[in-house]
């Protein structure tokens, strides 16, 4: 496939910073720098190479010339999407998202099924005063394992008297992954649907449960007046201000895994660590690659729906192995994608993977 280039690629100086930090380059056929180089000349790029990118954003964050290599990749993917030449699993995810507003194609009517598990009364956003919207990711909505996250957060909020509401079956995929897969038209539609929902219910702030949703709402929705934040930020505020009190200890060796979309792309490193540090007995360890250098779990950028050609050691496995060597008992995450990918590998090593809210719920007074 031939690709047209975006303007900024011409300023690339081929320094290799993108490739060097890329969680996929070097182990898969992906070489970010080479893709940018070829894109400058409109040269041939093997289609499959584009799909290794996990959209972790490392290249874009670090690029000294602000070329935004990941955007270059998304643009090139978009050419593939427009031509219809994409793998069936990606195709399915896109068609599902078009149809049911989630990539799994699960019924929209079951979007808020998790709410029944919470045991607390959850209001629709229209019935709230403060118009604080709790927005779940499609993963939270349909993956039974991840239901626990919205459940925990709504319990914590309800017990602390913080009002919030949900959209229920009107909730719709945020489109963060869709844009990264290259389906710009669909992203626009999702964005429009979401914005019209926010407007209809006069939403004032959005509590996002997934860093992916937070990222796109903050950076790609162009809603400057809307306050968007991640639940770890709110939880830390609640702990700091004594709204929730930690009453029990958690005697485990714990390592926190920085999600790409929360950490390196949005600079939220401290809040989750503050939360963990405020728990008695918990020993917080750090991975060798943490914070800005955190290792991507490979869940984003469409990789959840696409199986790459080559087989190689998964980052999640590398992560779990380091945790094992460090003697970590629990890997703590704050992103549903990380939870799914890491847990898959961690089970074998006997290491637990928990969402930060799960730990918090355990140690509350």
């Amino acid at each position, binding site marked *: 496939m031939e690709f047209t280039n975006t303007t900024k690629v011409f300023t690339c100086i081929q320094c290799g910073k993108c490739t060097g930090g890329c969680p996929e380059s070097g182990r898969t056929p992906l070489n970010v720098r080479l893709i940018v180089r070829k894109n400058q000349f409109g040269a041939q790029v093997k289609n499959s190479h584009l799909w290794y990118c996990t959209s972790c954003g490392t290249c874009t964050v670090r690029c000294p010339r602000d070329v935004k290599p990941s955007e270059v990749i998304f643009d090139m993917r978009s050419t593939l999407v427009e031509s219809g030449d994409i793998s069936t699993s990606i195709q399915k995810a896109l068609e599902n998202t078009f149809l049911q507003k989630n990539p799994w194609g699960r019924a929209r009517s079951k979007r808020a099924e998790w709410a029944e598990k919470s045991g607390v009364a959850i209001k629709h956003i229209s019935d709230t005063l403060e118009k604080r919207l709790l927005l779940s990711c499609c993963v939270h909505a349909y993956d039974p394992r991840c239901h626990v996250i919205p459940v925990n957060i709504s319990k914590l909020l309800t017990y602390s008297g913080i009002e919030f509401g949900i959209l229920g079956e009107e909730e719709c995929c945020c489109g963060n992954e869709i844009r990264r897969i290259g389906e710009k038209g669909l992203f626009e539609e999702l964005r429009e649907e979401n914005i019209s929902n926010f407007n209809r219910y006069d939403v004032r702030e959005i509590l996002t449960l997934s860093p992916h949703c937070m990222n796109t709402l903050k950076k790609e929705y162009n809603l400057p007046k809307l306050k968007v934040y991640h639940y770890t930020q709110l939880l830390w505020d609640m702990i700091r201000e004594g709204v929730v009190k930690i009453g029990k200890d958690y005697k485990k060796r714990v390592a926190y895994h920085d999600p790409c979309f929360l950490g390196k792309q949005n600079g939220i490193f401290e809040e989750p660590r503050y939360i963990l540090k405020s728990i008695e007995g918990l020993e917080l360890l750090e991975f060798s690659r943490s914070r800005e250098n955190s290792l991507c779990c490979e869940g984003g950028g469409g990789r959840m729906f696409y199986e790459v*050609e080559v087989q190689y050691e998964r980052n999640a496995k590398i992560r779990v192995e380091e945790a094992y060597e460090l003697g970590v008992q629990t890997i703590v995450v704050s992103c549903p994608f990380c939870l799914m990918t890491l847990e898959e590998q961690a089970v074998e090593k006997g290491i637990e993977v928990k969402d930060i809210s799960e730990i918090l719920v355990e140690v509350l007074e």
Partner: protein
Amino acid sequence: MSYGLIVADVRKGTFDERNLDLIGFCNILEVDAYILLPKGDYDVDLSYFKRVIRLNMEEADFLNPLNIGAIVEKTIEKFGRPSIIIFSSSSSGMEMASYLAGYFNVPIITDINGLSKEEKVFFKSCYSEKVYAHLRLKNEGFSVLTIRSGSFKQHANKKCEVTETEEMDPPTLSEKRSFLGYVEEEKQEIDITKANFLISIGRGVGKKEEIAGYEELATLLKATLSASRPVIDKQWLPKERQVGTSGKTVKPKVYLAMGISGAFQHIAGMKDSECIIAVNKDPEAPIFQYAHYGIIGDMHKVRDKLKELLKGL
């Protein structure tokens, strides 16, 4: 008295078991069962039928939908009008039935899986088994029906005292469609999405050495081996065997999941299978929520037992 005309479901010289459903259907409706059969030595108990019409034609021509109209015309000429003409809901049965209905421009109901005799109402499933439609025929002449296999075979229990066998010459055969032959399935690359029967193994398999045993089991059962992501990640099986959102979405007739706990991404890739059988040590494994049948037990033991039974057979 009017009769039900069964167009036999035959293929490669065998008389398919599915025909029993057609006989059972006639029995419930209490109509005489006539059957149309092509040339050939079929292993069939003819006493089920009131009348057997042997057509002096090849099986392949018999199965050509372009001929069925003329055949039925000829039959009517000879034996009067049937009240219903029934086919099984097989690949060729459906093909012939729809063409025949159009030929006479008569009503047709396909894939009937139940009926209420008193009301003369037929049931057929719609929206992938989500609902049944209750349908009644209003026409005066005959209608064409196709019957889902397995729906009525238990009613194929009435024998006729007298079975008349008639030979009949075929009508002029259509030249617009001709049978060229069966396609010998060359041993091609495994495509798990096309397999009818998948044995899928998961993390529970434990060691690479165990894989061979499952390959053997699959061969014995003429099944295709697939796997969930952890097995693929370890490179114990090639990538194209992976079931799940990031692998392939499959819809086999039978999906035998062994040692798969049922992660969300995996379930999404196989939940539409017709019949899911799960084998897992953990009775709490989510896969049991999606399975039709379950065995709680060690997957290796089940494997070995099955192999033993199969070899013993």
